[in-house]
């Protein structure tokens, strides 16, 4: 029997096991992606897999440190940690080095750290701290727009926790992918009582936006009018709140005509990424469509069982760009085939759902909310990263958790996950 005082008492073994499996599989794939017969030695620090091995060892040390620290530390210092990282994310713009048009790296010698990766867990902590003391009021019974806005002030304030860093990362650092990740916290708010209509409304806007880019605005406007009439006549069957419905319709139609304007405001490379995904205009597979096409070729050529470890021709010979970071899933798809790919997907989703299950068993709201934050962030990364490799989502450069090459990424995910493991292990000690 282990002592209750042991630092490792009560940690969820399944979570740790999946974590270790993902890290090991991730490293094997980084090795395969960078593999070159001339440099086959594992401990070659000049090679990316050699460096990744050091990052992984560092991550294990971080995990152990987190398990040693008292869980109360994270609750008590949630706001200071958040503040520290927010400042770091702003400071990086001034003292960081510019790499590929974005200023998001602190560099000391050869080693670089990306604060945007680390702010995720800090937001989780701060959001948990804030929400565990608040109730997200619903404005259903309140009349008047201003009044209902005031009633929901907690919700807006909670949103600031991630909207502020989101803007900092997007506008100041110019890291669109890492900024977009932060929208995943909406899922946390939803669990804690955010009116579902806001989420449906968000979806509605995205759907209209995408359709507006693909079809003629007149057709979409007509179908929207038809849809509203259908809803009023056959589902609601009366004309209550008619003004509200007309306003909603008017807003939707404005959105339809505004979509192309918004699209044109996107940066050129973002526009082409949308074009590639939606098949708009003529996509040149050798230029803008290259990444996605090569990614699909690499994965598609894997077949059921894959070409075998280190046998992939597409990823090994650099047909797929960014194959050890954002497109690491291509290596999995090509060398391990369909079977390997669904195992990787299954492991990720098992981990995410395991975290939700653990979150729901917490006695403290704080731990539960942080758990949801971890699950949401992992979910967003996995969904977007694999989705773009499969050609289902536009190319957004974010890493696959525990897989992609990169020290900041693997350390940030380890910290994010292990704080939750520690909170969970101490669930009986933490009061609500």
């Amino acid at each position, binding site marked *: 029997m282990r002592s209750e005082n042991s630092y490792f008492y009560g940690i969820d073994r399944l979570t740790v096991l999946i974590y270790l499996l993902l890290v090991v599989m991730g490293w094997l794939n980084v090795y395969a992606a960078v593999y070159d017969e001339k440099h086959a030695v594992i401990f070659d620090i000049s090679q990316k897999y050699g460096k990744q091995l050091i990052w992984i060892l560092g991550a294990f040390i971080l995990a152990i440190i987190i398990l040693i620290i008292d869980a109360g530390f994270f609750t008590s210092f949630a706001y200071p940690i958040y503040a520290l990282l927010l400042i770091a994310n702003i400071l990086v713009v001034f003292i960081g080095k510019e790499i590929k048009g974005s200023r998001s790296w602190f560099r000391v010698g050869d080693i670089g750290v990306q604060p945007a990766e680390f702010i995720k867990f800090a937001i989780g902590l701060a959001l948990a701290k804030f929400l565990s003391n608040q109730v997200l009021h619903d404005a259903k019974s309140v009349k008047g727009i201003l009044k209902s806005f005031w009633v929901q002030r907690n919700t807006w304030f909670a949103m600031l926790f991630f909207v502020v860093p989101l803007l900092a990362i997007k506008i100041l650092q110019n890291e669109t992918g890492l900024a977009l990740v932060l929208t995943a916290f909406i899922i946390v708010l939803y669990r804690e009582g955010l009116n579902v209509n806001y989420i449906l409304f968000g979806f509605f806007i995205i759907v209209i936006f995408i359709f507006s880019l693909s079809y003629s605005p007149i057709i979409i406007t007509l179908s929207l009018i038809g849809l509203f009439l259908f809803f009023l006549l056959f589902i609601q069957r009366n004309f209550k709140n008619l003004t509200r419905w007309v306003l909603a319709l008017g807003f939707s139609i404005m959105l339809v005509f505004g979509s192309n304007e918004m699209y044109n405001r996107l940066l050129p490379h973002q526009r082409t990424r949308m074009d590639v995904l939606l098949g708009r205009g003529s996509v040149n597979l050798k230029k803008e469509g290259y990444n996605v096409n090569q990614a699909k070729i690499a994965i*598609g050529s894997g*077949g059921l069982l894959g070409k075998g470890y280190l046998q992939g021709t597409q990823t090994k*010979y650099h047909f797929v760009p960014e194959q050890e970071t954002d497109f690491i899933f291509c290596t999995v798809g090509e060398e391990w085939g369909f079977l390997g790919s669904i195992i990787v997907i299954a492991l990720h*989703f098992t981990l995410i759902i395991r975290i939700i299950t653990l979150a729901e068993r917490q006695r403290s709201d704080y731990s539960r909310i942080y758990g949801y934050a971890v699950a949401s962030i992992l979910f967003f990364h996995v969904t977007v990263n694999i989705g773009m490799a499969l050609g289902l989502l536009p190319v957004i450069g974010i890493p696959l958790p525990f897989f992609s090459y990169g020290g900041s990424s693997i350390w940030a995910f380890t910290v994010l996950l292990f704080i939750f493991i520690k909170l969970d292990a101490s669930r009986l000690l933490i009061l609500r």
Partner: protein
Amino acid sequence: MSRNAYLIGRKFYIISFFLLIAVVYTLRLAYIQLWDDSYDLAAKNNALRRMVEYPFRGYIIDRNGKPIVQNEPSFDLMVTPKEIQNCDTLALCKLLEITKTEFLKRIKKAIQAPNSPIKPSTFEKQMSFTNYARISESLFKFKGFYFQKRSLRKYFKPVAAHVLGYVGEVSKEKALADPYYKEGDYIGISGIERSYEAELRGKKGIQYLVTDVHNKIIGPYRNGTWDTLAVPGNNLYASLDIDLQEYGEQLLRGKTGAIVAIEPETGEILALISSPNYDPNSLIGGKQRNQTFARLNKDSTLPLLNRALQGAYPPGSTFKLLGALIAQHDGLINRTTVFPCRGGYPPLNGKPKCHAHGVVNLPGSVAQSCNSYYAYVFKTIVDQNRFKSVYDGYNHWRDMVMSFGPGHHLGTDLPYDKPGNVPKAEYYDKIFGKGAWRPNTVVSLGIGQAELLLVPLQMANIISIIANKGYYFTPHVIKGIGTKHAIDKKFKTQHWAAVTDTNYYNMVIDGMQQCFENGTAAAEKISGIIACGKTGTAENPHGKDHSVFVGFAPRHHPKIVLACIVENAGWGGTWAAPIVSLMMERYLTGKVVRLDKEKRIMETAIKVPVKSIRKKRSA
């Protein structure tokens, strides 16, 4: 927790949403990895480069083991435009002896579709070994250029061009239709090279090399487990006697015509000569190939035409041999049968004409080549009482004739042979009106004139049948393929003509022997050899008659059958007969003692009026 216990149900929505994404991704993966295999193909094209190793084409060896055709290495200069770096264009142009404009033109061609800047394409084809040696010394300075080894044909003697044929680049249509060939590959275009292409070409070796995204070669794919080695083509053992072939070409030098020599007991072609001819080495490749070909193609004497297979001539008097055989077979004549002559065919007032030679029996009619005799023979065959009409009689004659080969393709192993022509009865209906013609109307068929046309190979084949007394083997020029020396069964099958009785043949052969002893070819007697032959003079509407001679030797156990035609040379005895006789002597004794005759023939040129060739081109 109780303050928002109602929210607990939301976890199910969240989990469901997550699982939905997982399911969608799994389905998408199944689609691109298991269902849609276009990605697999795209991956192979991406990363694998097929390097072709060209096999050596099979050799051709003559009946005595002498090599006729072998290979010689040649080098194609290849270029991958994308790989060119810091190229000293001027130095390279100097090295290759081309101008800068030409250089740029070729680079442009290599970049444009269907070529690609990242794939190698030919910069200069078929460079000689000396040029290769000179250039390759400094080629390392020019990145992006390299040599690819190919092989070209090498002919030991400048003879037999028509039989051997030539090799050239495969046509676009063929390359599309046959997966073995890619554009730029070589293929046999005529002669043996064409008909035995499948045996000669061997099998290309393919090496799969892995390339990276810059098309740089990384190494063999899967350690070369998929690679195949090039398999050289099969050697062919030709029935040709290359010395006899050369001798025949010398005899026909300066003249237009053809000689066919066959070994009757096997059907093996010993020599197949068409004149004028060309040096096969002039068509093997390189820069001069296209020029040579264009020149030969335009030449008014048609040197590219293989007259032995494609030149259709009236057989003239040599055709009388068939008349004699058919009439005997039908029981209409025998050794003692005589017909009136009087310097011509009496029923038609002395036409066709004949020369005064007195009364002749059957062998004598052959030896003296009596026109009147064979006009009667033809009429007698067609007019037999057993036939109800002239059609039945004519068709009977036609069937009998065709059983000896005329009128259809013999099925030899050389491409492009012509069937000749034995006119159908309907043809004469058209000319004279239905039922308005009689045997006498078309009696010149009996002496091998009128619309009757045979190619020299068919003439020789008829003599094979006579020498064999009734049967022949389809003439062929290849007697063994590869190490097993096997050939198609159809060349080992006896074909019987409609006349099978040995006695009938002996009667005709007696006449053919007399022909050499005291007949129309008496001047061509070969000492020590009993030869048999028949002269012919083919009337030619376009000019002087063609000189024709057919024959075989020795009479007992014949070893060689010959047919020779010399265009516009006049009477058969003057040119064709001595040529055949010299060929026989040369083949059977290995040397020629009648050097004066040989010299006279080799040194005489006979001009052919251009008009008569025009006619042939369109025929």
